[in-house]
């Protein structure tokens, strides 16, 4: 397991560094792929590892995007004036741009986690499908609300300060940031799930009532886990907003029906609840998605829905989950055959 783990990590690192050098035309696509990896990991830290399947994690992505934009502009100019003139009235100097971007990305992460902490008090009393529908409602209503908030541009959106420099430099700059964000998310969760906190989170998934009875402060653990995931999602939102250069509430900031669902689909495709599953799933999903977008244009959404259905109905354990079942010894899982016989007998008796 250890050697496989290291090989995979080295492979990803190599692709992360040399990918845009080898395929310069696809730099944007590869950057998007890293954001997808980040999406899948943050979703799976809740859905797969904790058993809280959120359909509204995209909320933090959009909030991060708006927080970053407002910070980038608001540090130097009046935000209301800027949005009402759709950003045409001001220019940012180099230092202003980079200071704004740096502060904005941090503010996006922190602001999103603060929002997660506030929301945690209201939604963690919901379980299972209620939690999924409640979070879906939060994401949908956020999109509608931002669409009517004129201070941040309303439904017509707001342009983000333009990168000072050439287009090539811009794409490489944001590619590097996206890769760093995905890599730090990966390493962070790798560390987190080797600690007691990871065990506590898994205990909540397996039996929340028992975990509670064992003295685990479940609400606190759930809220903190959500804050972590919101932190990285907020950063990814800030980066994605700067990558596209334009923030609009329904299609860019709160795309509940696209990115919001992709997160879930990617984790399930790779195998939710396994550490490598979301990463593998995100990369596969992104490649499949780009292929269908290119070759089945017009039918891409039908293809997406069919993938989701086939995935959850016929292939629930996902790619990595399936491999774990097939070759458990490669993943360091020991199967005690006497135990599994007993379980089968128990199931038969039920």
């Amino acid at each position, binding site marked *: 397991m250890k050697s496989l783990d290291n090989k995979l990590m080295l492979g990803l690192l190599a692709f992360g560094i040399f990918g845009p050098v080898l395929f310069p035309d696809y730099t944007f696509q590869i950057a998007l792929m890293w954001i997808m990896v980040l999406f899948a990991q943050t979703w799976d830290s809740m859905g797969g590892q904790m058993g809280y399947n959120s359909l509204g994690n995209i909320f933090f992505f959009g909030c991060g995007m708006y927080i970053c934009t407002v910070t980038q502009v608001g540090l130097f100019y009046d935000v209301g004036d800027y949005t009402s003139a759709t950003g045409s009235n001001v220019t940012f100097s180099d230092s202003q741009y980079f200071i704004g971007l740096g502060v904005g990305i941090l503010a996006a992460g922190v602001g999103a986690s603060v929002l997660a902490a506030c929301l945690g008090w209201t*939604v963690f009393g919901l379980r299972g499908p209620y939690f*999924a*529908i409640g979070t879906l*409602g939060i994401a949908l209503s956020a999109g509608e609300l931002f669409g009517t908030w004129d201070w941040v541009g309303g439904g017509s959106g707001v342009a983000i300060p333009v990168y000072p420099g050439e287009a090539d430099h811009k794409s490489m700059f944001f590619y590097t940031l996206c890769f760093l964000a995905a890599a730090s998310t990966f390493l962070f969760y790798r560390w987190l799930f080797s600690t007691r906190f990871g065990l506590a989170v898994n205990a909540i998934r397996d039996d929340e009532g028992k975990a509670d009875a064992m003295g685990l402060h479940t609400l606190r653990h759930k809220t903190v886990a959500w804050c972590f995931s919101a932190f990285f999602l907020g950063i990814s939102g800030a980066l994605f907003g700067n990558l596209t250069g334009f923030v609009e509430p329904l299609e860019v900031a709160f795309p509940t029906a696209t990115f919001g669902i992709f997160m879930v689909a990617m984790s399930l495709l790779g195998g939710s609840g396994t550490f490598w599953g979301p990463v593998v799933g995100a990369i596969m999903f992104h490649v499949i998605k780009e292929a269908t977008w290119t070759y089945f244009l017009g039918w891409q959404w039908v293809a997406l*829905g069919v993938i989701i259905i086939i995935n959850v109905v*016929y292939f629930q354990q996902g790619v990595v989950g399936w491999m774990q079942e097939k070759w458990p010894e490669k993943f360091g899982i020991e199967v005690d055959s006497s135990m599994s016989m007993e379980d089968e007998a128990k199931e038969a008796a039920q």
Partner: protein
Amino acid sequence: MLDNINILWLAPLLNIQLIVDGILIGAIFALAAYGLALVWGVMNVKNLAQGEFVIMGGYIAWFGSTQGLHPILSMPIAIVIMFAYGWVIYRVIISRVVAKDMFISLLATFGLAIVMQQALNLMFGPEVQVADSGLSVRSYFGGSVTIADIRVVSFLLCCALATAVVLFMKKSRMGQAIRATAQDARAAKVMGIDTEQVYAFTYALNSAICGAAGVLVSMIWVIQPFYGLAHSIRSFVIVVAAGIGNLPGVIVSALGLGALEQYGGFVLGAEFQQATVVGLLLVVLVYRQIQMRKKRQAVV
């Protein structure tokens, strides 16, 4: 916003208009929500494709009306087609997720919803459509309250359909089997009920009910391939507010939702209608949590 509230205060008849409109539309919501509660209660599947079934029924009626068939007459056709469609969907997809984790069924039906809305979009285009019923609009109270005849007709049809479904559930053998399965699936199996058949029938019945509701929606309102999600969320709001297996509760909260949505649309502006529905969903969920917290339980 305050101006609009002021208008309501100054012209009390407008309230009557909004409430009557809300109730006439709410009756259709009740139909779709009853279907959801049925599937939820019997097989524990949360059907997120509920709204898409409604819209699909609407498109059947609209397509019939372009071929010269009156939308009301196309209702039986829609019911039959949607029943068969629901049966097939159950056999292909739902039967494989019934026993699984609840989130799996939620996601599977969400995938189904995406496929259906996109397929409808590819077939009929993204335009907003209305099936013209050809009935007139009448005004009451000296012209300050106007009610389209078709809304009254659809309300009556709703009542008739709901009565038929309730009678079916109470009197027929299949209805009794469905209720028995909802109470205890294993016991029902032991008593010789083919629960697999019951599940398939329940899902198909839900689909047919939604199809009938969709025919009414296409006549009194508008249909569009992507309007399904709002209908799904409405059904969820109603069922969560009323609780499963509480038929009077479903009716009352559906009519209430219809009226509240009309008020929300009037006071805040028409573009807020969907936001009102979603906002109400959150309000209901938070309220349920507070209720359950008093009993030291979570909303499961």
